[in-house]
């Protein structure tokens, strides 16, 4: 404990900085860092190295190797660089490696060295070559800025949605700027560059000259500039060894420092954290590291080895061939607790707990002291918070133990902050592990969110750990476990050396029917890798048949798609497949397919009934469905045909079909109708009036009403109208005519086959007065 603050270095009066080791690296580098292009992603991301053979003339024949390591130095990928000379490397926010080539082409690689895509930064860049390039991060994603050989800038603020912007010319710029950087203000990317003693700010429209307020005189050139992680602060290093620190807007100066070293620093980065007390810049030379801020003295470290700085949200990571360290401003809670002779409540509580473990009565004294001041709640909170900022698990534990001890003496202390911190620390310790190598701090983790952390684990193919974390934090399955399993499965299908059966089985064993997992998505991925058979196997596991169909169609397994669509019970889906099939197959095959699927067939018939009558006929023909064919022609006889000849012909075809269908009744009825139709036509010609399309009954009635009794009798005989009907018909018609004479004659002619119901029946119209 005595030496716990030994690595604390004060800067000015208020702040301490400490540097501790994250990992000792055994990445077995063949090259010196200084000979390589280096890129390290923020938030404890991976490190990419590409030995830069293009810088020196020698050994251009040897192909360089691109290597990717985790932050702990575990190799993730190594590949021979076969493309053109690379000017700059950088990581996107999605942890994709962007390699900017001299010709302006940007190659994008995955974390495991898998080539993703490439894009060009435009013709202008291609012609003038790339002199320098930066990869930067904005709210929208990751951007690329390029300085061309013609001393012009081109940038794209988001490589995901590539829009190139050529920045305006800097007047009188003859040589490359001594230093430059990208700034992001108000969602717009700017470029700040230094030419000799002048600073210029480039935006989309114009180039303006700017002057930092309160800049010491005598500056003839700027050697280095640095923008803070949040783009809020700017630091400038001049050739006089003077450092200016201020806001990015160049409206306000924060402080300045003169380090009296005129050699250009290798790197300069900001070292601050959200709500920092002190704003400091870390400057690195070959063998020296300096932390400067608003204080007359600076903190100095000696660098034993060639090192590289990675700015983070709340500090700076420094890695070299052998170690990986983290330098940051000591957080307030930790400072209060651990500062020598601190009387802060948290410090007292920690002491109290330690005495308690020693079974000393001092524990009580300390505790009383805190309680008397009424600061116990605060003490517990402080310990919890400080635990979060500790890297070493033993320190985390002792602080949490103190917090838990203090909690016992509080009546109503909400437990969730304590519980959440314990959970978060377990997660953090797990991912900080050497094998995983994501050295996130608590603040970075909170900024990144658990979802993104899970994504990054998935990206590193650390599926089991990701799932354990999900289960441990009890994340909802759909967001957590299922999603990770789905990712795992998508990775699994890319393993080409495993047989389709094994992959499908392995996936199904793991996934089972976890809710939220879409087998069709995985199958789509398999199909994307050219494994159609595997995709089909995977689709078998998809419980929602509706989901299987679109992919099956895409894979040209339309018949399978059809049966799946029918299974799903979604007629719309069936129809979609049907129309696909219709275009894909020749007519004969299409009809054959339909024949085996009655549901699809009836659906297609419905469609044809309205849209393609001819196809409908063909369908019936193909099936030898004479009954329906007959019905089809019957319908045509009154719906499609207008001329009487056409109608009769249609009826004839119908009658033939009915005969074939052995439906004698329908055939006979149809033939009767043909006769009737012809007769009606003749009646119209001879007698005038409308007869066409009347039923037989109505035809006879009309004849009687028209006084053509003979004709009516004839018709009744021809069509064998039964007596009963004829009687009803005549009586009704004659009564309507009020032709009582004829009615009486008729009633006496034969014995009525319908009895005397006429007289009693209340339904008949006027009862003939003389009919009694």
């Amino acid at each position, binding site marked *: 404990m005595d030496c716990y603050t030994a690595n604390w270095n004060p800067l000015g009066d208020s702040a301490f900085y400490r540097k501790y080791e994250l990992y000792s690296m055994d990445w077995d580098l063949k090259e010196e860092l200084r000979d390589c292009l280096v890129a390290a992603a923020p938030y404890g991301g991976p490190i990419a190295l590409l030995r830069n053979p293009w810088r020196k003339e020698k050994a251009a024949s040897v192909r360089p190797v691109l290597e990717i390591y985790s932050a702990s130095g575990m190799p993730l990928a190594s590949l021979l660089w076969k493309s053109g000379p690379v000017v700059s490397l950088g990581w996107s926010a999605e942890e994709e490696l962007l390699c900017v080539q001299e010709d302006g082409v940007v190659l994008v690689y995955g974390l495991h060295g898998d080539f993703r895509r490439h894009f060009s930064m435009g013709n202008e860049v291609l012609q003038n070559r790339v002199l320098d390039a930066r990869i930067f991060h904005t709210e929208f994603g990751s951007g690329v800025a390029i300085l061309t050989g013609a001393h012009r800038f081109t940038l794209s603020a988001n490589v995901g949605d590539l829009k190139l912007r050529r920045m305006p010319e800097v007047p009188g710029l003859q040589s490359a700027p001594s230093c430059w950087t990208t700034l992001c203000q108000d969602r717009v990317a700017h470029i700040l560059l230094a030419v000799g003693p002048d600073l210029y700010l480039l935006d989309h429209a114009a180039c303006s000259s700017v002057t930092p307020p309160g800049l010491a005189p005598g500056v003839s050139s700027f050697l280095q500039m640095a923008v803070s992680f949040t783009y809020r602060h700017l630091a400038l290093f001049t050739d006089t060894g003077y450092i200016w620190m201020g806001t990015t807007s160049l409206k306000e100066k924060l402080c300045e420092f003169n380090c009296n070293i005129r050699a250009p620093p290798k790197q300069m980065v900001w070292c601050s954290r959200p709500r920092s007390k002190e704003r400091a810049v870390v400057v690195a030379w070959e063998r020296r590291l300096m932390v400067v801020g608003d204080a007359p003295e600076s903190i100095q470290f000696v660098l034993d080895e060639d090192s590289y700085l990675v700015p983070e949200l709340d500090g700076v990571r420094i890695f070299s061939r052998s170690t990986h360290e983290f330098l940051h401003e000591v957080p307030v809670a930790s400072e209060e607790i651990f500062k020598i002779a601190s009387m802060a409540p948290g410090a007292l509580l920690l002491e109290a707990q330690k005495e308690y473990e020693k079974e000393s009565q001092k524990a009580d004294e300390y505790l009383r002291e805190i309680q008397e001041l009424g600061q116990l709640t605060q003490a517990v909170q402080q310990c919890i918070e400080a635990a979060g900022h500790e890297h070493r698990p033993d320190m985390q534990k002792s602080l949490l133990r103190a917090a838990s001890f203090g909690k016992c003496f509080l009546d109503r202390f909400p437990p969730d902050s304590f519980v959440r911190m314990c959970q978060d620390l377990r997660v953090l310790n797990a991912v900080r592990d050497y094998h995983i190598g994501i050295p996130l701090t608590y603040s970075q983790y909170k900024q990144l969110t658990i979802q993104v952390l899970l994504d990054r684990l998935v990206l590193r193919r650390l599926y089991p750990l990701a799932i354990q974390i999900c289960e441990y934090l009890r994340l909802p399955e759909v967001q957590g476990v299922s999603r990770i399993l789905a990712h795992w499965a998508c990775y699994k299908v890319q393993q080409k050396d495993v047989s389709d059966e094994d992959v499908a089985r392995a996936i199904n064993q793991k996934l089972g029917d976890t809710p939220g997992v879409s087998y069709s998505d995985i199958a789509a991925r398999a199909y994307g890798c050219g494994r159609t058979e595997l995709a089909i196997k995977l689709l078998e596991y998809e*419980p929602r048949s509706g989901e299987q169909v679109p992919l099956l169609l895409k894979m040209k397994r339309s018949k399978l798609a059809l049966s799946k669509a029918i299974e799903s*019970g979604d*007629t719309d889906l069936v*129809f979609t497949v049907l*129309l696909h099939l219709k275009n894909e197959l020749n007519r004969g095959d299409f009809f054959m397919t339909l024949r085996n699927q009655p*549901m699809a067939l009836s659906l297609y018939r419905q*469609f044809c009934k309205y849209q393609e009558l001819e196809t409908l006929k063909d369908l019936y023909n193909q099936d030898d469905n004479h009954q329906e064919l007959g019905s089809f022609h*019957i319908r045509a006889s009154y719906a499609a045909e207008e001329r009487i000849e056409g109608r009769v012909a249609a009826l004839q075809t119908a009658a033939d079909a009915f005969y074939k269908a052995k439906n004698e009744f329908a055939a006979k009825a149809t033939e009767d109708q043909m006769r009737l139709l012809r007769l009606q036509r003749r009646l119209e010609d001879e007698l005038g009036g409308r007869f066409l399309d009347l039923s037989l*009954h109505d035809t006879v009635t009309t004849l009687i009403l028209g006084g053509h009794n003979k004709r009516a009798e004839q018709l009744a005989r021809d069509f064998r109208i039964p007596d009963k009907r004829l009687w*009803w018909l005549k009586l009704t018609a004659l009564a309507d005519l009020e032709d009582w004479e004829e009615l009486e004659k008729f009633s006496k002619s034969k014995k009525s086959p319908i009895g005397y119901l006429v007289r009693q029946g209340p339904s008949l119209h006027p009862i003939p007065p003389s009919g009694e």
Partner: protein
Amino acid sequence: MAFPHRPDAPELPDFSMLKRLARDQLIYLLEQQHEVDKLYKVESKPAVSSSEQLCFLVRPRIKNMRYIANLVNADKLAGRTRKYKVIFSPQKFYACEMVLEEEGIYGDVSCDEWAFSLLPLDVDLLSMELPEFFRDYFLEGDQRWINTVAQALHLLSTLYGPFPNCYGIGRCAKMSYELWRKLEDEEDGETKGRRPEIGHIFLLDRDMDFVTALCSQVVYEGLVDDTFRIKCGSVDFGPEVTSSDKSLKVLLNAEDKVFNEIRNEHFSNVFGFLSQKARNLQAQYDRRRGMDIKQMKNFVSQELKGLKQEHRLLSLHIGACESIMKKKTKQDFQELIKTEHALLEGFNIRESTSYIEEHIDRQVSPIESLRLMCLLSITENGLIPKDYRSLKTQYLQSYGPEHLLTFSNLRRAGLLTEQAPGDTLTAVESKVSKLVTDKAAGKITDAFSSLAKRSNFRAISKKLNLIPRVDGEYDLKVPRDMAYVFSGAYVPLSCRIIEQVLERRSWQGLDEVVRLLNCSELAFTDMTREDKASSESLRLILVVFLGGCTFSEISALRFLGREKGYRFIFLTTAVTNSARLMEAMSEVKA
């Protein structure tokens, strides 16, 4: 007169939420989204409107698409440009888009969907307002609406909690049920843990029981539907009812106090009730006499309005009754009912057949004639070949040759069929009974049942005791059983099935009935293990009629509910009756 519910009968869930939902959606869709200011009905004639944008709210049918296509193309020819919007309800179908594309107007219209499926017509009656369901599914074999049914059930279960007990019979019921379950599984979590409000759900296909739907209705609400046609819970009373020169649109639901008391009554009781009511009303009016000023003021301000309202309704229903009576006596109603009862009971078949023949010969009504033929066919397991041919010939002569297609439809739907020669039910039964001694009997009976889809009405009727034994006069004023909805002559088959299954809480012991219904594979029970359901919710039963239900069935089940302390809720694809069923099957000249 009106039977009160038992005191322990459960409360009905509040369905007004569905109504509000539908109304808000529609208003949002039409007013906010599309700024519709004038509404027209989609008819065969072109809409005349000068507005810049036309918005169509249609069912997803090819016919409607062609209507729209014609309209758009006519506009194009006339050199008019407007915006067109098609809103499909309840969903858009790919086939419709295809048609729009084939007609060359796909680029001119934009499409939207309105997922509306449930309209509460009354406190216990939800309708999907899909009258086309019947023809689409039972005739054309089109399963498009099954998805809609499943969605509707899903909506109900999200709003009113899961259903712990599910029963069903019929192919469509089974498919809808399975699809619905799939939907629930996909979206689980939402209904889980909710307390069920409705304890049972019963799904039933219309083709399980055509007989009930084909009978003439004699309870008041059914009779009003048969006579005046109730549309979406309201009816147009013509001048003959309103005794003025205007017709009047009247909402018929539980809010109409007079109607609510007579809707489930046998028609023979209604007149008596109404005149009693009229006398009571008069007495209340008469109380005015001898009132002092203050009392009179009270009377006018508080009671008079209610009395006047009641008066108005009373006179409307009396008018409706008179009108019904007039129509029915003209049509020889007694004779018709007698024939129907004879058909149901299965005696005097020859007489009934000649009655039907005469009915056709006299051209009484094409739909009525068809209905009687179907009733004869179903109760008798098909017509004997001679009758089958002669009745059809008569029918074609009376009503026109295009009905040849109608007959083909009816045959396909199993509504009007021909007996295979010598294959009457008794013949089949004797054959089967002979085979019972045989070891292969089981197999052979299976083969028999799969041979042809027979209605087996007579056997089912016997099994389920559908024709009550009458000793003395059936007292229609104090009904004993559900048969009262058909004057005590017949217990509706559909309702009896529901009653039996609910009593047993499963299909157990009903195997024979299920077999006779040709549904050996299609009857299902699903009890969920959750026992969170309160005893009150377990007495609430949702009955889903796929293909429509009649008001008689609703009345019968309401009666059953009162007897047993249940409450039934009805969900139907549409309210139907015999005429609607027959029209759905008929081919008419376009």
